[in-house]
């Protein structure tokens, strides 16, 4: 079977969705199908150009293709008799961001018209799809709310679970992922000042701006935590990320109101590590059953400090929670096998 995976592209931009598309193609090939990635350029600025691009995508032909899996607006407007959608998100500028007054369409005299055109085209496209999946309950809820289209949630599995095999703990708490305000690494450092002196913290990941590392370093010095907090702020290889997770005692991930379960939390669970998160971390909470496989702290230095102390006080207990973490995660069945069964059905 020839399966075409379609995604948008903006030249020289690369992120999670791009990585997922590449992995999806690779996994379909491993199943013995032919798979290819189609990346169509799309620009949303100026918004007046969006309509023409929608028409363009609608006008393209896909010869020699048995299946189409489309990931985003507007590539899912492609015409194909067997189209599945795995929606990573809608064009939010035309929906919830518009309602929230946070869309560039508000600045255009044609904004309303455009929004309606997008909703109409979306409706038609969802309707003609063989199946509609989304990556999260939030995306599904929005799809139902705005387009009245039912969808099943297929959470994206880890791209490289084999790198998170777990292993002996070196006793530190690992905080991975992008380093930026919304991921609140600063709060973790503040929490260290309230945690027992045995707690060690490793923060590793690419900073979003040069300001982030400076702020973290300053805070560490202010609080005198140089001996207990290790910073490794750069784009690490996936193997290095795996190493950090595998050798940790537990993992902390406290983004603010994340849509998804969070790759960092999923990696921690795959590696068999207990997870520390906060009450306001959104989808990440779905990875943690307090007391069983981790801690859901208040987003305060005191509460987080207490959770980190608890994790460090009894390593044997924390290791057991780590095993529970892996079992709980495995039970969710978020695997490429299952994902492909659905996407290719």
């Amino acid at each position: 079977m020839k399966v075409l995976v379609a995604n948008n592209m903006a030249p020289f931009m690369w992120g999670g969705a791009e990585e997922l598309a590449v992995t999806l193609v690779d996994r379909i090939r491993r199943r013995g199908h032919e798979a290819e990635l189609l990346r169509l350029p799309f620009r949303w600025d100026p918004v007046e150009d969006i309509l023409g691009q929608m028409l363009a995508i609608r006008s393209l032909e896909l010869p020699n293709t048995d299946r189409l899996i489309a990931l985003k607006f507007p590539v899912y407007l492609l015409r194909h008799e067997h189209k599945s959608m795995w929606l990573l998100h809608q064009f939010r500028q035309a929906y919830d961001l518009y309602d929230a007054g946070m869309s560039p369409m508000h600045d255009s005299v044609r904004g309303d018209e455009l929004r309606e055109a997008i909703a109409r085209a979306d409706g038609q496209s969802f309707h003609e799809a063989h199946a509609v999946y989304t990556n999260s309950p939030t995306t599904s809820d929005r799809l139902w709310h705005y387009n009245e289209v039912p969808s099943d949630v297929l959470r994206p599995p880890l791209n490289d679970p084999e790198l998170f095999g777990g292993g002996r703990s070196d006793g530190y708490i690992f905080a991975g992922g992008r380093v930026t305000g919304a991921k609140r690494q600063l709060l973790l450092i503040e929490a260290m000042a309230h945690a027992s002196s045995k707690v060690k913290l490793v923060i590793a990941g690419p900073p979003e701006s040069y300001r982030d590392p400076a702020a973290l370093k300053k805070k560490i010095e202010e609080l005198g935590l140089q001996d207990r907090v290790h910073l490794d702020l750069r784009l690490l290889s996936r193997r290095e990320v795996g190493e950090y997770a595998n050798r940790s005692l537990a993992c902390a991930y406290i983004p603010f109101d994340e849509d998804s379960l969070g790759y960092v939390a999923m990696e921690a669970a795959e590696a068999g590590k207990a997870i520390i998160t906060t009450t306001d971390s959104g989808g990440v909470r779905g990875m943690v059953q307090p007391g069983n496989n981790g801690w859901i702290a208040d987003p305060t230095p005191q509460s987080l400090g207490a959770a980190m102390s608890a994790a460090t006080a009894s390593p044997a207990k924390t290791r057991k929670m780590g095993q529970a973490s892996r079992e709980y995660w495995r039970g969710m069945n978020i695997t490429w096998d299952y994902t492909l069964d659905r996407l290719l059905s």
Partner: protein
Amino acid sequence: MIPFVGGGARNIVDWLADELVARGHEVEKVMLPFSDEPNDLFPQLAAFRSIDLTDAVDLAICIRPPAYFVKHPRKVVWFIHHLRTYYDLWESEFRLMQDTAIARSRRDALRRADTAALGEASRIFVNSQVVGDRLARFNGIESTVLYPPLPADYAASSKPAGDSITYVSRLDLTKRQHLLVEALALTTTEVRLVLAGKAAGGGYGVYLKEHAANLGVSERVTVDDRWVSDEEKSDLIAGSLAVAYLPVDEDSYGYPSLEAARAQRPVLTTTDSGGVLELVRDGVNGRVVEPTAEALAAAMDELFTNREQTALMGRALADSTVELGISWDTVIEGLLS
């Protein structure tokens, strides 16, 4: 591109991208799907036209038609062929549609649209003089030749020359493998023939085998109807006596000619093979003969009998690629100038 169809037109994009990256540039490949169904032609041209890469990239290098319809203030075209059925093949037996009024007006509209889109380009290069001539004749557009090289990491194997005339290419009526089978039947020496490559469809591969059987030459011809890996290809060519390449009025000298040059094997071709003749000269670095079984048979026998001369011509072909300046340095210097 056509989904799931690889080959020359994609290779040139991949190789060029690799060479640009090796020289420190940032590169994104944009491959847009395209169907050659005549009724879908103009909606697709409009779609390509709606893609605006202004500000997103510093330079857009457009290769296969109709990629040059995209919008960018600094658009450089490395033109490798027209949508030929609407151009030079229109008056030939290879035209893919009937000559109706609507088809003719579509043809004329495409030619006008091509001329306009190409006219926006800041530079236009072609992959051969043949294509450059067509561009001048049909679109009134001047161009500069930039010969496409093989990838830098193309591995040429080293082997003593064998007894076979070897043709590694898609098995296809327009590549005329059947003519070589017919020629083989007229040879008087023990020269052999190897035809390797995936049949494009329509049972041409099966036909070639039957044809060989009917002519009583099955013993001396190998028809290997399948996709051939680069390693196998380079091995087959290295072990050959000479390489055959006789497409009908090809756009360029073709990668098989360059692969022959890498292995220092001469090329056997025909007087009507188009761009191949920009590289291959009769008696110098290969044989160029009339496209008949008789002429090809005589050339095959001579290549087989005068082995020393054959080897000399093979080495001369390798020298010719250097003389023509077939290198990535030349290509990239041109495209970025």
